[in-house]
């Protein structure tokens, strides 16, 4: 904990309350993500992981609270500020969200052509470089529909990295992928994190992937509408007594456990 505090936070979520209409999904959530770390948001389906992610990247407006990205509040930013903040981040959506009418080359070149004045030759080199990083050299002229799911994810990662973002967000990167392909994505995430120092914020519930890549984890819960545990995955699994955390890490069905009231009153800290 002490060690983490010394590092500089790049994302600060302060007292975020999120919801749609009357329904509140997250209440008074606060946490920080530090520069260069791989930060993982976990939790059972429906606990608001993806909602939290979409609030951090500015897709949804919060009911209350603030989200600071590299010092700028994304919740109050006007259009010009917002586009400046958004250039610092890249988002990899669950389904990849590649534009199906464009080739991979065009998908990745799009942000470069729109946001920079670089000549076409340099953009071409950059696009090839990004594709090389995700091991998709030679697929420049392919359309997304001609690729497998894992390749689409990797191509989407290349697009998310087009403008060299400081922070990369992943919404369930290994969803729908076979273990081998999912492990490849994890490896890529680690490689990019170590060589470029990009901060990674990942929403997932893939246990294998959590243990391989996560440096720090927060766990959300639907009933609590907030964070119930923070820490490294191994320590959470070993030390945290909260039954919900234990069920998650041990893949235990919670149907019978609902009646057990062995729940921590305070969020579990295991760092």
């Amino acid at each position, binding site marked *: 904990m002490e060690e983490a505090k010394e590092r500089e936070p790049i994302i600060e979520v302060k007292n975020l309350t999120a919801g749609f209409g009357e329904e509140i999904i997250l209440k008074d959530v606060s946490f920080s993500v530090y520069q260069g770390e791989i930060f993982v948001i976990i939790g059972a389906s429906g606990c608001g992981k993806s909602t939290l992610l979409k609030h951090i990247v500015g897709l949804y407006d919060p009911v209350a609270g603030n989200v600071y990205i590299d010092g700028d509040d994304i919740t109050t930013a006007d259009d010009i500020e917002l586009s400046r903040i958004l250039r610092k981040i890249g988002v990899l959506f669950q389904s990849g969200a590649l534009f199906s009418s464009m080739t991979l080359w065009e998908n990745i070149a799009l942000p470069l052509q729109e946001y920079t004045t670089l000549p076409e*030759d*340099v953009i071409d080199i950059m696009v090839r470089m990004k594709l090389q990083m995700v091991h998709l050299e030679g697929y420049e002229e392919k359309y997304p529909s001609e690729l497998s799911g894992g390749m689409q994810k990797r191509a989407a990662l290349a697009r998310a990295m087009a403008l060299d973002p400081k922070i990369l967000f992943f919404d369930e990167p290994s969803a729908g992928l076979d273990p081998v392909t999912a492990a490849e994505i994890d490896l890529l995430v680690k*490689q990019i994190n170590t060589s470029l120092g990009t901060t990674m914020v990942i929403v997932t519930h893939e246990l294998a992937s959590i243990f391989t890549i996560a440096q720090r984890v927060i766990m959300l819960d639907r009933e609590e509408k907030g964070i119930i545990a923070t820490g490294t995955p191994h320590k959470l699994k070993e030390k945290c007594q909260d039954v919900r955390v234990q069920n998650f890490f041990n893949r235990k069905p919670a149907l019978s456990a609902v009646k057990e009231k062995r729940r921590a009153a305070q969020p579990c800290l295991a760092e």
Partner: protein
Amino acid sequence: MRLFFLGRKRVNLNNTDGAQIRLVPAGRKKSTFFISGSVTVDNSASVREEILSLVPTDITISMVEFDLKDVVVMDSAGVAILVDLRKHLKERGFDCKIINVPPRISGFLTLVDTDSLLELAETKKPEKKFNLILFLGEVTLEALEECRSVVTFLGEMVIALVSLLRHPKKMRWDDFFLFIERAGTDALPIVALLSLLMGLIMAFQAAVQLRQFGANIFVADLVGISILRELGPLLTAIIIAGRSGASFAAEIGTMKVSEEVDALTTMGFEPVSFLALPRILAATFVGPFLTLVGDFVGILGGLIVGMISLDLSATAYLEETYTAITFFDLFSGLIKSVAFAVLIAGVGCLRGFQVERSADSVGKKTTSAVVSGIFLIVFADAIFTIIFHYF
């Protein structure tokens, strides 16, 4: 650009939004670019321009080095311009080297292989040449494929209809009524408005000509017959094509993209009879009714012009219309409208089923649904005209 002397060597120093570029001659054959500061996506374009403008013109220099010792930040754009510059310099006959890469910026260089990038950048994409035979072949294959899918679809429709007749209860009647509302009731205002305007325009244009001969009253004949026989059914059909044909294609297409059509198949439903049949039947049902409304309002439009600008009485106009039109005029128009509706809804659903798994494809097929719908309407109208002419 500032020029000053550092010791006895002439040095170019340049500042480009956070990046400094210095060109220092090193020995007789070599020049070194010292780059410092940050080279990022924001200033890479100008850094590249700057370096290109500084490239030595001295022919004795055969080697150019890029010294990155003092670079603080360099992102992929920075790496890309170096790769690009190396290519340019090689073309001009220089040897090129990148030296002193500090560990803090070497990240990209560990992830990418710049040499192979350079090779890739040098091998230009082979330009596709137009090949007439290839083109003709592709067009023919496409046409054959289209024929095949039309025939398949027709066959499936016939099977669906037969099974509907045998088991009428299996039909999705809720869907049928829903589509009657969407394709019929919801279309009433626009059909009425456009038909009224069409009647007004027709009557007005005719009046200008007929007035010269004192034949004002024949405006009623002209408007009545042309609306009942041609314009009513045609205009209504075009509106149905734009509204319902497009919506059928987009809806079924999106269902294909999200695998809902596949889900239907695995649950043992025939997608054609499940999705297309209620839509086509509903459209066929509302087609003639909408046309009837269009006919009526169109004649009303003619009547308005007749009364206001031709000084005809309402009775005289309607009487003239009544004597001019025959039951056959109305009937032939309604028959046509049924055929048009079948064609529009059919091609709309067919295009929906032809959608491949992409957003792009949904757009293309929806456009195609409307275009082929209107083409089929006009084509069928031509055939009807010939048939009615001889019988």
